[in-house]
């Protein structure tokens, strides 16, 4: 430890015990480090308590029955406090989405990458505009996807941003098909 301590016999002024200033410096540094360590260690629980609690995390995934959604329609469910869009796309909407794969996209993504393999009709998206968090309106905008009422962001039938201020496509959450008609989100 002594090699990391600045050796300055006058650092704390003339003292009664000047035989070995290193020992006094060591005590000062050790006390300071211990105090900082304790305060820092205690600070974390007081920050972490603001993170989602155990019961919130336990309710973080939901199951959804797709048979409730007719073709060409969308059902909105609440997932982790936010709207989740479950859209049953028509063949025309799917075709439009695929044909736009090579258009000049702001956030390039193929339509195939936005649905599960073999299930092109099911588009599952987090219904939060990537601009400032409003909920886009179903079927609005010139691409037949969604239109955000707040600042006019336009999404296509694949949920990709095509016009307006939003920077990203509508987010696809983690989900899996439990059966042909049932999905688990989260």
């Amino acid at each position, binding site marked *: 430890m002594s090699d990391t301590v600045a050796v300055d016999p006058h650092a704390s002024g003339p003292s009664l015990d000047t035989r070995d200033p290193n020992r006094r410096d060591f005590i000062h540094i050790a006390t300071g480090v211990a105090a900082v360590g304790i305060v820092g260690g205690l600070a974390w*629980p*007081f920050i*972490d*308590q*603001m993170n989602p*609690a155990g*019961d*919130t995390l336990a309710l973080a995934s939901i199951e959804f029955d797709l048979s409730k959604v007719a073709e060409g329609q969308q059902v909105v469910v609440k997932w982790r406090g936010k709207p989740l869009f479950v859209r049953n796309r028509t063949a025309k909407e799917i075709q439009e989405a695929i044909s736009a794969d090579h258009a000049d996209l702001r956030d390039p993504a193929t339509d195939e990458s936005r649905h599960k393999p073999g299930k092109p009709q099911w588009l599952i998206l987090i219904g939060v505009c990537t601009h400032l968090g409003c909920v886009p309106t179903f079927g609005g905008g010139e691409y037949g996807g969604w239109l955000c009422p707040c600042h006019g962001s336009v999404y296509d039938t694949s949920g990709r941003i095509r016009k307006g201020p939003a920077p990203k496509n509508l987010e696809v959450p983690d989900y899996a098909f439990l059966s042909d008609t049932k999905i688990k989100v989260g």
Partner: protein
Amino acid sequence: MSGPSTYEPKTGFERWLDQRLPILRFANDTMSTFPTPKNLNYWWTFGAVLAMMLGIQIVTGIVLAMHYVPNADMAFNSVEHIRRDVNYGWLIQFMHANGASMFFIAVYVHMFRNLYYGSFKAPREVLWILGCIIYLLMMATAFFGYVLPWGQMSFHGAVVITNLIGAIPVIGPAITRLLWGGFAVDNPTLNRFFSLHYLLPFIIAGVVGLHIWALHVPGNNNPTGVNVKSKEDTVPFHPYYTVKDGFGVSVFLLMYAVFVFYMPDALGDAINYVKANPLQTPQHIVPEWYLLPYYAILRAFPNKLLGVVMMFGAIATLFVLPWLDTSKVRSMRYRPTARLYYFIFIVACILLGWCGANPPDEPIAKGFPSFQLLDSPLNSFTWLSRIGAAYYFAYFWIITPWLGLTEKTLPVPEGISEPVLSHPATAPAGSVASPEKRG
């Protein structure tokens, strides 16, 4: 605050700030260079402990309020939610609940130290009274806080304490209804208790500011009780007492940590883990340990109004203590007779606490023959609490004024430095009269 300021701004910014808001000068004069008697012992550390506990209670309390729901249907579950689900909620909730007990341990030590060394006497009467106000506010805050988890003891404790007000003739029942916001302790009561529980600590912090202000005008008392006579009698607060208080506070925190981590429920009542049920009172209802002596005084009297009056009188007595004590000598170091009665007083307070924790009609010594004296058996906590209460009041209203006039005191030293220097064996080699001038 006392004496001319010794602050010298070192940088241009400090000079600039000092002419506009002398906050650094204030901090320097109150916390760094403040002249403090050089002979303070560890009983004086509890002031720092109390300041720390107030800070801990406010910080943990603000965090708990982020998760707590002040609603009669949800309060109990929200506290369980904090303990089980919130990240580190168990730690923060246990820190807060045990923190209240630690706060009271420290305040009682602080108050008994005060009584022993006569710190409440002139010129520190206002300092003492401000302390009594803080103590009252602490009791109110602790009571409101204890109601919030909405367990069985929370609920029925609130019922009992609010019903005390009902003892006031004529207007009592109306005041009680006003406090409840209904016809019984219920959701409106819980909501206002939560509001007040959040408010009062900040009022306490304000009064603590006045308390420290009032301390810094005459300066600290000291174990000899003799006034500081010269600069030789004092050392600057920093580093001498910052380091000493730092060490004392660390030891106190260790004890606190033992409770929080190893026996978090030791000071609480298990029945409070049962959700409040207005239709059923627990078999044996007691307040938290720090209120037990007053609870015993309340129950010592067979008349409801008299019990309430005496209980509040026990606290009110503290406010007039500076004028009840007639002794010219502050410290009990030089008052052997007063010291004897003082230690009996401590025993009486502990006995009262023991009485408060037990059912009044229970025999103290089981299987021991007893006979009926007036309304209760002599071998019962009722009579023991009567003896304790009698001594409590006699100590302040009879013994203290009488002793001050009649007792024979020991010779009081001329000054603080004298007892230190007249015992060379206890003075470390090389110790000098003015350590503040050395390293």
